[in-house]
């Protein structure tokens, strides 16, 4: 028995030697794995980059598996996704993992970037690592967008329409750019195949190449040490200090730090699997048939904040903002390490950096949250679907009830909520009569203004009278109605004036 074991070991060793003699990878790989790391950097804060890489590998593998079945043709893509969801064994699960893996990857890349920023790890000599990282973020977002297009449903179709409309605003070359993006005059077969090429060949190729450079630089320059308040980065002294640090008490990356990376990556993979299992794949929503217009397209979660920005920008600012803001933001991120490549690394000595992270995180969070319920969009079915609160109809005159009907029938409800139901585009009208007088309401309805269309052409005088009659009854908890003080005064003047009231 022992002889068999020895023989197996010796065969294995000889096989290893055969390969090693020809590959010569053991030495460089061992050196890379054991590269000395500052002991403080073997930390749970330093695990996000490797988790992002693991997620990328997951996306590559699941992406290849999905490509076995997916048909990148505008006429068949949607059906092939249904086929994946319902006919292929565990096809739904692979789609779910790929979809959730994408969301997790965007999130982890953003967290990684925030950590690097707060720890000052982009400073000398790791400026280029950060710059490559900015490109990695852009490629990751590019993968998320093109991936959403490959899920060729209504959201993808109209999302492409939004993309084309944005591109069309580029001065001078907007038209040719739209044709380049769509591959033709409309969103169609050529459009999907070029987004397939981007998602499957172009961006992943760039992503893998840039990741390789990024990781190489981490190995070459060493992992950033834990920042200490007062320890200033200076180009003149940093290399010597870092070298002293790792040669004095550096620990080998494998296993001292790597086990934390591995545990975290496993936890993230588990989260992806759990989300895929419990929440399932994303869509596809309705067929990408542009004649089905009963749809309210919405982007995936990573782009909801852009969707919100586009709703809130004033029209005249929109085009300049769309083209200047990305240049400023991306340019700022690229230039950051070149401008602030030295100095304090610790967050407690960099209040503006901390403030920036807080402001950006809150802004993106709020805009994303708004994007989930789109208060700026009319609710297209509210006028025919939402009931009028019964309290608003009790003890009302026929004219006022007729006004309640006009309110529904003229789609006022699509933008104005009553009793918490209806659109949020305009203000809720539950207490409108406490804010506006009859005359103000008539003017607002007929002439519009303040982002409300004018209804002068859509309402007859009788309808207007009924509608305003109804609106006048909406006074919240029976608050007193808004009054026109000047009218009270005129009326008081025209009738018998009690002595003492006018002085």
């Amino acid at each position, binding site marked *: 028995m022992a002889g068999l074991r020895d023989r197996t070991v010796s065969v294995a060793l000889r096989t290893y030697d055969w390969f090693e003699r020809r590959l010569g990878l053991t030495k460089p790989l061992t050196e890379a794995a054991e590269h000395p790391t500052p002991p403080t950097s073997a930390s749970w804060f330093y695990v996000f980059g490797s988790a992002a890489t693991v997620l990328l590998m997951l996306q590559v593998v699941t992406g290849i598996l999905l490509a076995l079945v997916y048909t990148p043709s505008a006429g068949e893509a949607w059906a092939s996704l249904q086929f994946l969801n319902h006919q292929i064994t565990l096809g739904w699960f692979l789609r779910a993992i790929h979809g959730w893996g994408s969301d997790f990857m965007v999130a982890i890349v953003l967290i990684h970037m925030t950590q690097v920023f707060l720890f000052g790890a982009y400073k000398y000599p790791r400026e280029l690592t950060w710059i490559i990282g900015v490109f990695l973020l852009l490629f990751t977002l590019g993968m998320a967008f093109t991936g959403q297009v490959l899920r060729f449903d209504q959201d993808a179709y109209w999302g492409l329409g939004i993309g084309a409309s944005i591109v069309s605003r580029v001065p001078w070359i907007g*038209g*040719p750019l739209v044709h*380049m993006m*769509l591959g*033709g005059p409309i969103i169609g*077969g050529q459009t999907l195949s070029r987004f397939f090429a981007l998602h499957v060949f172009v961006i992943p190729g760039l992503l893998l190449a840039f990741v390789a450079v990024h990781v190489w630089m981490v190995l070459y320059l060493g992992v950033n040490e834990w920042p200490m308040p007062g320890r200033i980065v200076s180009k003149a002294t940093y290399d010597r200090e870092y070298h002293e640090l790792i040669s004095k008490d550096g620990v080998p990356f494998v296993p001292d730090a790597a086990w934390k990376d591995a545990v975290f990556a496993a936890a993230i993979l588990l989260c992806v699997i759990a989300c895929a299992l419990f929440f399932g794949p994303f869509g596809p929503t309705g067929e990408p048939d542009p004649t089905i217009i009963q749809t309210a*397209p919405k982007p995936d979660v990573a782009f909801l904040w852009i969707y919100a920005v586009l709703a809130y920008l004033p029209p005249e600012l929109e085009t300049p903002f769309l083209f200047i803001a990305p240049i400023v933001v991306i340019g700022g991120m690229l230039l950051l390490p070149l401008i602030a490549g030295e100095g304090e690394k610790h967050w407690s000595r960099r209040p503006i950096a901390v403030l920036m992270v807080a402001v950006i995180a809150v802004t993106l969070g709020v805009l994303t949250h708004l994007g989930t319920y789109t208060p700026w969009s009319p609710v297209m079915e509210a006028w025919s679907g939402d009931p009028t609160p019964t309290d608003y109809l009790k003890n009302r005159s026929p004219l006022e009830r007729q006004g309640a009907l006009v309110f529904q*029938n003229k789609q006022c409800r699509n933008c104005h909520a009553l009793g918490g139901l209806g659109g949020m585009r305009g203000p809720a009208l539950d207490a409108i009569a406490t804010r506006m007088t009859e005359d103000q309401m008539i003017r607002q309805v007929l002439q519009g203004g303040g982002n409300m*269309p004018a209804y002068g052409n859509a309402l007859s005088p009788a309808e207007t009278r009924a509608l305003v009659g109804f609106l006048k009854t909406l006074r919240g908890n029976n608050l007193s109605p808004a009054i026109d003080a000047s009218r009270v005064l005129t009326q008081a003047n025209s009738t018998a004036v009690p002595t003492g009231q006018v002085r």
Partner: protein
Amino acid sequence: MTEINEPSGQPQPQPPRSSTAVPELKALAHSRRAFLFKLSLYLNGAIGAVLAVPILGYVLGPAFKKDSSYKSWISLGPVSNFPDGETRLVDYRNPYRTDSDGETANVACWVRHIQADQFQVFAINCAHLGCPVRWFEQSKLFMCPCHGGAYYVDGSRASGPPERGLFEYQYSIVSNNLMINAGQMPTLSNSACLKKPLVQISPNSSDRNQEGTSWPA
């Protein structure tokens, strides 16, 4: 392994940068093998330039096609399909399409019949970011589900983020059929961006009275 983490150590004496500084190096730069190496680089540069022409032509092909090459006149059906004063949703098959387009080559548009042979044909795409607008007969408004753009019955901007009114197709009436010049998704940068056309040129414009020849005047 000792120096790997210290890329920029003490400055080392650098070899002279310019090959002209030392005679031997100068001679080396003019040697046969240096010449052949340079020649191979130029050769590949030239081949690359030749290859770039068809590649760029292929990639940029769509960019250089004119709007008009995509568009043609198609029929939306007899005028009698569109009652006076009403706005109706009409689907058509895009005249420029490929086999792989499938249902994406179906396009919807809103046809407003004003009266007699006066029409307005609106693109389905909101002038803001291209989402499909819906017509509400009762309030006489087009509303967009994406960012809340709204337009009046004549397509002019009512409220919301759009900068302008709805895109309109050119139309004409040929042997009692409503024809439109279609083929391209309207955006702010193509021919759809033109404001409302001042004059509708149509084959039977001579049949119309003076006022009817142009809409809107």
